[in-house]
């Protein structure tokens, strides 16, 4: 039985936030950090609380800590040592493994995310702009009141128009094919596979392999917690549109090429089910938009290229042990939307996402290392993920096609990683434990 009243809501719930802010914080004295935490605990909603008050709530707060942050709050060494190696090292130190090279190197990250003094993130989601202004104002006052607590940087978030469905700056529908957790009360949509054991995402529960093992200590700190990989990905919307326009002959071809990169049409309709033209009704229908496989329905990638983003990030029946590789995705877009036809101007806009899983190395790092940035994925030879892989202009993208395939050589970067971090997302009781440390 999941402890809904102890699990932070972000793990199990999607909120109707239209705006928000990520606050990246550092604590120069433990008591100050704990004071900040103590004041926020009553505001952080559990999954149960968020569910109950979804319609009336205007803001949703999530708190998480880096390994250095746990130390900065006063977690003793013997406990810190029980956290997994990759979390202790942090995302910046794992850049080689993740393929964060070239422009994506931690030296180029913004917002102080690569530094050892990044201790915590407060995710402040708000229903509207007025609430955003109020909530961030209240948080600013709290930070000012707490000795040694300082903001390293903030990132303001906003949904991009049109607002009737969630999508990124490129215009692709988001929030498709999320794993469903056993006991969460949610039913998997057709094609999404069975609900997964909670231990794949929440510490302290059985996972797909068996009972929980090697949990951080003490138990109160680990229970109902999880790990969260943060990725701030700038989307080069202008260059993306220019590339598509240059390589395609007609507006329909442009849409098709964009879909080939993504694996789905902008509407969300999967190429496997809609290979030739978009089907917005299919894209919007959760009972149908995930109901397909690759092995039988599109083994050679004539509909959905083998190296497309969606096919890499969720190879479905063409990868082994998929149930041990699933991740929960949350996040939002940031930066101004780019109107069609307007110049990009290098403005920073993109997605700021969280990947939530019980093992960063087995789930998140595996996806980065073996699926996104592996040149030989599915025998491709010289490709990375065309959307979120690291691109330096030397790689390709192959579109299987009859009679002959089309290879796009020298693919430019459509996105650039601007920062990231590994956080521990404690349960509510664990936060009380942290606040009471001495």
């Amino acid at each position, binding site marked *: 039985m999941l402890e809904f009243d102890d699990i932070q809501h972000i793990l199990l719930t999607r909120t109707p936030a239209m705006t928000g802010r990520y606050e990246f914080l550092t604590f120069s004295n433990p008591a100050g950090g704990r004071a900040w935490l103590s004041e926020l605990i009553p505001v952080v909603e559990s999954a149960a609380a968020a569910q109950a008050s979804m319609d009336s709530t205007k803001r949703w707060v999530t708190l998480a800590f880096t390994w250095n942050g746990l130390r900065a709050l006063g977690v003793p060494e013997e406990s810190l040592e029980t956290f997994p190696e990759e979390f202790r090292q942090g995302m910046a130190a794992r850049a080689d493994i993740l393929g964060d090279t070239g422009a994506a190197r931690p030296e180029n990250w913004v917002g102080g995310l690569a530094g050892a003094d990044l201790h915590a993130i407060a995710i402040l989601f708000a229903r509207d702009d007025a609430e955003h202004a109020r909530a961030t104002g209240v948080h600013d006052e709290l930070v000012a009141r707490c000795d040694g607590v300082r903001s390293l940087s903030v990132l303001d978030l906003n949904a991009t128009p049109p607002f009737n469905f969630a999508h990124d700056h490129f215009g692709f529908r988001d929030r498709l094919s999320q794993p469903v957790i056993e006991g969460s009360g949610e039913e998997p949509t057709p094609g999404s596979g069975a609900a997964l054991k909670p231990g794949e995402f929440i510490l302290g529960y059985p996972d797909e392999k068996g009972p929980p093992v090697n949990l951080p200590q003490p138990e109160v700190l680990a229970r109902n917690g999880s790990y969260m990989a943060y990725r701030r990905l700038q989307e080069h919307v202008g260059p993306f549109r220019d590339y598509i326009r240059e390589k395609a002959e007609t507006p329909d071809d442009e849409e098709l090429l964009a879909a080939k990169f993504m694996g789905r049409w902008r509407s969300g309709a999967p190429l496997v089910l809609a290979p030739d033209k978009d089907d917005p009704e299919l894209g919007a229908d959760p009972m149908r938009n995930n109901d397909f496989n690759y092995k039988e329905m599109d083994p050679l990638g004539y509909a959905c290229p083998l190296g497309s983003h969606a096919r890499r990030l969720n190879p479905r029946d063409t990868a082994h042990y998929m149930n041990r590789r699933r991740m929960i995705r949350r996040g939002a877009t940031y930066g101004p939307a780019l109107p069609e036809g307007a110049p990009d101007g290098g403005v920073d806009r993109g997605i700021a996402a969280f990947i939530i899983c019980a093992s960063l190395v087995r789930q998140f790092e595996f996806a980065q290392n073996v699926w996104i940035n592996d040149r030989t994925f599915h*025998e491709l030879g010289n490709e990375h993920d065309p959307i979120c892989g690291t691109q330096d202009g030397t790689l390709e993208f192959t579109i299987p096609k009859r009679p002959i395939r089309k290879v796009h050589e020298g693919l430019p970067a459509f996105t650039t990683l601007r920062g990231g971090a590994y956080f521990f997302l404690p349960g509510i009781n664990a936060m009380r434990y942290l606040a009471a440390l001495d």
Partner: protein
Amino acid sequence: MATAEAIAPAKETDWSKPAAMAIPKEGYFTVQNGRYGPIYPRTPACYGFTIIAKIKPGTEATIRQYGNTIEKTIAGLPDALEVLKLHYLRWVLFNIGQDTYFMYQGIFDTDFDKYTEDAVQLFSQTGITTVFTNLEGFPEDWKENPDAFVQFVREHQCPSFLEYGAYPYVTADEIKKALRLKAAFSDMLDQMQ
């Protein structure tokens, strides 16, 4: 494997030109970390390992018996090891003085860490107890503690100092694809007689 690229040739597509690679003592050229430690490079002979460990006294017959077990398993389930992306496996027992050692050599197309990870998963999923349990120092709790399995493998890996490929960098899938193509062509030509 993204991070091995800097040390391996940029384009590895020329299968027609045999290639050799001398490898430093550590097993890699520069330290580049993978998910579980330094990455061993892809060579003209693909990825691979040579694991050498002393066997527990009196287990030689048991280990030899594994040979028959695996033979039967593969006969019944030819795809049982498919996930490991293997070319070849060689299992050898040999003596140094009074001690018997087990050598496990594999040549495969996924990187070292993924191979080990997949192997642990495969063994514990199918309930095959691994031949490794007869080796000295092998973690008793390997099923619950895959990291300890990975660590054991890494500690007992003896990197090659030379690897050679007559058709370098070709994956097993590519070879099988080429053979299928050849078979299809032969079939077609036969039909046209």
